[in-house]
């Protein structure tokens, strides 16, 4: 059993469970992994339970920017906060990420990939094998860049099929059918302009005046409903996806 999992077990009281709405500080590794630096965490719901050599945790929380007030559920204040919802356990050795949203004005700045890298470190320390999620909206592209791979052939087929259709609409001579891993889209050579994407009937992608990579266009150009995919990041330090995540976080901002 990983030493951090052992330590968490040791922090549980005799009844084997702690409510994270009042006891998150007993698990600083979890608190620090789910939130960007300078943000605080306002837990809506959460629990750590364990016995013997087993432990599991679930947390649903607001990520509150420095200087902002923790929101009351349903209030307008919640709009300026991020949101995370995950659970993990030592039976499946998975961390399942249901939600990771950063505040709207903070999106596309590297916070999501940063939290993902923190979660990967936590997962490795706990002895987990992978992180899984459903990649939708801008996450369809963002999680490819962070080393997530297709978790099932159907997801891969949906993404490749939508990309093939959109490549034709763009008039680009590219055949995505050879793509095996999600990150292969990141490696596609070539760029597209925002105007070309719109002319092809694609969803508008803001580019701050820079060209958009062809892979990004083929994944985010189709509507969100066409190609959400289930993704998995393997936490083995030598896995290609994990290495890609580290490299991406280190190089964030050097490309779009």
């Amino acid at each position, binding site marked *: 059993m990983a030493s951090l999992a052992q330590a968490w077990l040791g922090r549980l009281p005799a009844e084997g469970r702690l409510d994270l709405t009042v006891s998150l500080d007993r698990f600083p590794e979890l608190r620090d992994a789910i939130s960007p630096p*300078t943000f605080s965490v306002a837990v809506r719901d959460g629990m750590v339970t364990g016995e013997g050599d087993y432990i599991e945790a679930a947390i649903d929380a607001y990520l509150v920017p420095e200087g902002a007030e923790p929101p009351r559920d349903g209030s307008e204040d919640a709009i300026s906060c991020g949101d995370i919802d995950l659970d993990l356990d030592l039976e499946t050795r998975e961390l399942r990420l249901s939600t990771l949203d950063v505040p709207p*004005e903070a999106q596309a*700045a590297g916070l999501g990939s940063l939290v993902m890298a923190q979660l990967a470190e936590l997962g490795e320390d706990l002895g987990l094998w992978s992180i899984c999620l459903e990649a939708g909206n801008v996450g369809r592209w963002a999680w490819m860049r962070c080393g997530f791979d297709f978790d099932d052939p159907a997801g891969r087929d949906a993404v490749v099929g939508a990309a093939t259709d959109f490549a034709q609409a763009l008039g680009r001579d590219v055949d995505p059918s050879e793509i095996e891993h999600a990150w292969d889209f990141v490696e596609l050579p070539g760029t597209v302009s925002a105007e070309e994407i719109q002319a092809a009937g694609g969803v508008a992608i803001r580019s701050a005046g820079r060209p958009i990579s062809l892979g990004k266009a083929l994944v985010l150009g189709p509507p969100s*409903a066409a190609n*959400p995919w289930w993704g998995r990041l393997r936490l083995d330090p030598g896995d290609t996806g994990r290495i890609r995540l580290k490299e991406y976080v280190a190089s964030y901002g050097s490309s779009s």
Partner: protein
Amino acid sequence: MAVRARPTVRKRLKAKEWPDQPMEGWKERGAEEPPPYVVEAVRLGRERLAERYAQREREATASD
């Protein structure tokens, strides 16, 4: 697996309904760069991760 004495806290991932437009955050709002508090959080986080990676590297080297 043995039946556990306590109720599980585990949830299942469910497919979501996604909006049609991808969000592009601060770019969407016409800003030239992200808000300063975001830039600072990313800078600090990257520093901490770099330290963490270096520490793991040292540990791996020491155990070889």
